[in-house]
Each structure stands twice: as structure tokens, then as C-alpha cells.
């Protein structure tokens, strides 16, 4: 039995970039990528790595320098704008939304490719708009004006608009920029739920490593060689490609915490830490920020953490003193 292909969009030998009078400026090249239905794919890269350029190119807004983008097997440049708009919808970084437009009116703009010349909404259109607003949890704002919404709510409205456009592929450019942590998490969870529940292929760009690692089903990682490594986030972590992609001086990937850390060339005082794993994790974080190195080997300074999570105690070996907070502990260490 043949396996059903899940790939909806793919690229072959794609080079994206800019062309001007001075010549060709490739930003990313040799891209052989594929986007699958039912998955949230994150395009991860540093600022200026070419995330938006790639997104604009595979979204058909910008022309590729080389290679081809295929939408369901058809070259994207051979698809006319109207048909493409029924297969692919976008949330862009332009944060210009007209304040006098109501949420309902903005979401209903998503029906643009389907409505008549005047844009009159049929009952079917209205049903789809309703479902889009329900799925994104913005029904209660329906009659509010865009200007009255918070950034997080506005982003949900823009996502609802793409749902109203009823496309199998959705691209979002930096959808969580400007958002605080709870809002970021909410948007990521919403997008993942949408991908899984409605079997859409969702691609978003982000420079937020932790968010991408935690939520992406698939990662497109822009590396230092101006191309892209793609795979499961955890695979890219373990084979070192992620660390390589973000490689900078004085920056090191912490494989335990899944984040990057600054490293300094200065010689550090080594401290051995013992105790409950959660307490150890946060103590370590404070010690490392203060410039100490936590080591599993025996050391002159040893800290033993006792007590429970609610009332932990830190015991320092060299003066045999117990501290109730990490702050007090650090004051003692720094005075040493």
C-alpha cells in the first residue's frame, strides 16, 4: 500500500535573495525543504538571517533567484494569485491594522478570494468566519475595533483572518514578536492545535529558540553556511547543528537546559553542588550568573542543599554555615 504523501509545499535547489543593479545578493541557497500537513514547522534563525526573505519567496510574493517552489506539486509561479490565495494565507510582520475596522470586518476580509465583486458574505462565508473566530477564541471581541485590542489579541485576529481564508498552508512571520511570555505561549499552542486539529501546514518564523524547541513538530534551522538544516528539533539539538547555527564567541549551548549561555574566558571558582534537582537547578543558575562554575567533581567549596522546596536551606562547607536564601549565600561567597 502506498503511503499518502503529507508534503504540501516543497522547494528544489532554491536560492533566495535580492537582485539589484550591482548584482545578485543570495541570502540563502541550496534549499530542498518540504512542508507537511498537520505539522507546525518553525523557521528558526538569528536576526537578519533571511527568515522573512525565504518566507516571502516560498509565499510567492518575491521571485526566487534560482530553483523552484512547488505547491502541491505545481510550480508556485505558474499558479495565479487568486488560486494561490485559496491555498496559502499569510500573517506578516507589518503591524499596521486600521483601527476603525472591527474585528469581525477584519476577519471577514479573509473571505476576499471567495466573495463576489462587492464582497457580500454568504451564509457559508459567515459560518466559516464564525468558526475561525471560535477557534482563535476571539468571538467576544467581534464588535471591538482593532485599535482597542492588545497586541496578543490582535495577533489572534490576524490568525483568525488566515483561517477565514481557508487555506491548507499558513505562513506567519514573527507572530510572537512584541508579545509577552503568556501570550507567546498561547499563540504557539493555538498554532500547534490548529495544525494538528485542522490538518493544516503551518510555518512560522521565529528567533525564539526555547519556543521553537518546545512547540515545533519540525524545525528549519538557518545555519552559518547560508543554508537550512531541517529535522525534528531534538535531533538538531543532539547532533550539534543547533549549537553550530547559533555559534558566537562566548556563547555556549547548555544541553541540559536547552538554552544558550554566555561563557567567559576568565578562570572561575569551582563549586560542587548537592541536593534536590529543582533546587540545584535554580541555585546553579544563580551561581553561574554570579560567575561561578558548578562542577560534579570534588571542590574546595561545596554546597549542600537540604530542606524541602518550600523551605530550602543551603549549607556551605568551609564556614559550616546554613543560609535561608540564595541571596545570603551569594553575599557570603562574594565576600570570600
Amino acid at each position, binding site marked *: 500500500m502506498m503511503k499518502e504523501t503529507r508534503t504540501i509545499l516543497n522547494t528544489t535547489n532554491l536560492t533566495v535573495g535580492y537582485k539589484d543593479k550591482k548584482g545578485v545578493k543570495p541570502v540563502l541557497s541550496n534549499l530542498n525543504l518540504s512542508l507537511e500537513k498537520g505539522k507546525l514547522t518553525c523557521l528558526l534563525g538569528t536576526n537578519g538571517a533571511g527568515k522573512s526573505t525565504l518566507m516571502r519567496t516560498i*509565499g510567492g510574493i518575491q521571485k526566487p533567484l534560482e530553483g523552484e517552489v512547488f505547491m502541491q506539486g505545481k510550480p508556485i509561479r505558474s499558479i495565479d494569485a487568486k488560486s494561490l490565495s485559496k491555498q*496559502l494565507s*499569510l500573517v506578516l510582520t*507589518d503591524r499596521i491594522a*486600521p483601527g*476603525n475596522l472591527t474585528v469581525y470586518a477584519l476577519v471577514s476580509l479573509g473571505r*476576499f478570494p471567495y466573495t463576489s465583486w462587492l464582497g457580500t458574505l454568504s451564509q457559508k462565508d*459567515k459560518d466559516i468566519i464564525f468558526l475561525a473566530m471560535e477557534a482563535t477564541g476571539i468571538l467576544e471581541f467581534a464588535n471591538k475595533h482593532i485599535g482597542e485590542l492588545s497586541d496578543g489579541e490582535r495577533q489572534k485576529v490576524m490568525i483568525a483572518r488566515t483561517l477565514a481564508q481557508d487555506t491548507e498552508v499558513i505562513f506567519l512571520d514573527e507572530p510572537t514578536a512584541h508579545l509577552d511570555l503568556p501570550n507567546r505561549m498561547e499563540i504557539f499552542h493555538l498554532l500547534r492545535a490548529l495544525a494538528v486539529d485542522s490538518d493544516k501546514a503551518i510555518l512560522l518564523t521565529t528567533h525564539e529558540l526555547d519556543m521553537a524547541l518546545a512547540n515545533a513538530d519540525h524545525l528549519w534551522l538557518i545555519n552559518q553556511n547560508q543554508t537550512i538544516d531541517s529535522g525534528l528539533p531534538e535531533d538538531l539539538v543532539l547532533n550539534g547543528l543547533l549549537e553550530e547555527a547559533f555559534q558566537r564567541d562566548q556563547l555556549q549551548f547548555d544541553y541540559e537546559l536547552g538554552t544558550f549561555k554566555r561563557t567567559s574566558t576568565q578562570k572561575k571558582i569551582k563549586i560542587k553542588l548537592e541536593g534536590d534537582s529543582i533546587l540545584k537547578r535554580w541555585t546553579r543558575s544563580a551561581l553561574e550568573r554570579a560567575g561561578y562554575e558548578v562542577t560534579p567533581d570534588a571542590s574546595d567549596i561545596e554546597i549542600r542543599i537540604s530542606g524541602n522546596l518550600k523551605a530550602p536551606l543551603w549549607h556551605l562547607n568551609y564556614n559550616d554555615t546554613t543560609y535561608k536564601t540564595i541571596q545570603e549565600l551569594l553575599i557570603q561567597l562574594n565576600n570570600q
Partner: protein
Amino acid sequence: MNAITQGKRLRAKSLTLLGLMLIVLFLLDIGLGSVRIPVSDVIKTLLGQQIDNSGWQGIILKIRLPRAVTAILAGAALSLGGLQMQTLFRNPLAGPSVLGITAGASLGVAAVMLAAGTVTTTFSIRELGVDGSWLIIIASTLGAATVLMLILGISFKIRDNVVMLIVGLMVANITIAVVSIWQFFSDPEQIQEYILWTFGSLGGVTNEQLGALAIIVLTGVILTFFLSKTLNALLLGEDYAQSMGLNVKWARVAIIATTSILAGAITGFCGPIGFVGIAVPHLSRSFLNTSDHRTLVPTCTLVGGILMLVCDIISQVPGSQTVLPINAITALIGSPIVIWIIVKRKNLKASF
């Protein structure tokens, strides 16, 4: 979703109210002037009935009716031109006059007036007959279109709206400079006529020409209404509009063509009338608190007509023989209204 039907009802109510206001002001505009004519007599005359004072009948049918209709047409046309420019450039300060479209139309008219060497003021357009009036309309539309195409060409290179606006202002300045050099080398008599034209006048259009103007403006209004959906999509910016399947290049061309027909024709017949094009779209958005062009197009048409009628009534200085230039009145009356609206509603900036 109940509130959405409510919104529709509010829209219908507002449009009815504005329609009634337009009719009342239309009758007042005809009734008021150097000679005061009772509204009942105005209605009778308009309905084709005889009234006792045959002099009044002549004034109404030959002078005031064409002027009032011209006022409505001019207000509607300039407002819709402004609405389209503001949406296309996504700039609250855009309008036919700011982006040099009116200046372009002036250049066209100046070319005809100053180069023709004949007396061709708005007052003598009548003497030129149909050919002459068409010459002025075509010249001003071509002038408006030329400047707009230039602006459009530059706008392909510049994506920033504020920069675009400054460029538009500069293009307007260049156009005005060309006209002023032309004036410098022209006969004083011709210059005077041109200057008279620049004051703006709603009274220069005869009954016969009114037909042509009405057809042009009506076409423009209908075209704009057909563009409502396109204009709505452009509210989100060109990239979004394109992603929704809109052919942005054609949309730009259509919007600019419609605007130059509307603004060009009115400028040709009535002179460069400023302010209305910028103010009315803002007034309409504020009144209905919407950016939906399907509502804004009819609203702007009505509000534009209402505002021009008010300005015309004031410019006639009821009860006196004086007539003030309409161009000064539109700015004098309109600017404070706009300032008041902006300060009160605070949602002007939120529109873009």
C-alpha cells in the same frame, strides 16, 4: 453576532439621516442667496409647478439649481477622490490636493487658458460652448492623471508612506511652480482670468454642461463603489492584499484613474477646491466608526455633498450681494470642523 445586524441597522439609519440632511440643505441652498426665496416656492418650482414670481423661477432654474447640483457633485467627487487616496497611500493626510492631483489639473487648465490666448475663464466656458468645456475637462483630467502617474511611478520605488506624502507635496510644488512661470510670461488679462479660476466657483457650470459633469461624476461614484472590495483589501497593506488574490498593480491603476477622473473633472469645471477631499473621509469614518468602504463610499458621497452645500450657502452670504470664493470657504469652515473631530474622537490616527 446580534450586534452585527445592529451595526447594519445603524448604518441604514445614518445613511437615511444624511440623505435627509442633503435634501434639506439642497433646498436651503437654492432658497438662500442675494434674493431670499421661500422653500415652499423652491419645492414648487422644482416639482414643475408655476409660482407667482416668475423672476424667482428663472433664478431657481437657471442659476441656483445648477449651482446646488454642482455643489453636491463637487463635494461627492472630491470626497471619494480623497477617500481612495487615503486608503491607497494609507495616509490620513492624503487627498487629491495634497498629492498634487489638483495642481496637475490646474496645470492642464493653465495650459489651455494661458496658451489659448483667448478669454476662457470659467465664466466664459459657456461662450466656448460644448467643445470648450470638454477641452477644459480633458486638459484638467490629463493634468491630474499626469501628476498622479508620476506619483504612482515614484510610489513603486518608495514604500514609506510619510516619504511618499512629502514627495507628493513636492511634486505639487513643482507643478505649481511651472504654472507660475507660465503666468509670469502671460498677459495680465489672462493671468487675472486664471487667478479667478483658482478661487473656485460652483456657479460657472451651465445646465447643458451639468449633464456632462453629472455623467462623469456619477461614473466615478459607481466605479468607486465597484472598487469598495479592493479598497477594503488594501486597508491591510499591499502585501496582504496580494496574498488575498488581489492584483495590486491593476488595483492601483484603477484607483488612480478613478480619482483623476473625479478630481480632474471637478477641478476643470469649478476650479481647485481644497480641503473637502481630505476632511470628508475623516468625518465619515468618525461618524460611523468604520473603515468598510462599502459603507464609506455612500457616506462620503452624502457627507461631501452636505459639506459643499453648507460652504456654498455661506459663500453666497445670504441677504447680501457679495459672493465669497468657495475655495476660501471650504478651508475656513472645514478646517475647524476637522480639528474638532480629531480632538473629540481621537480615532483619526487609528484609521491607518
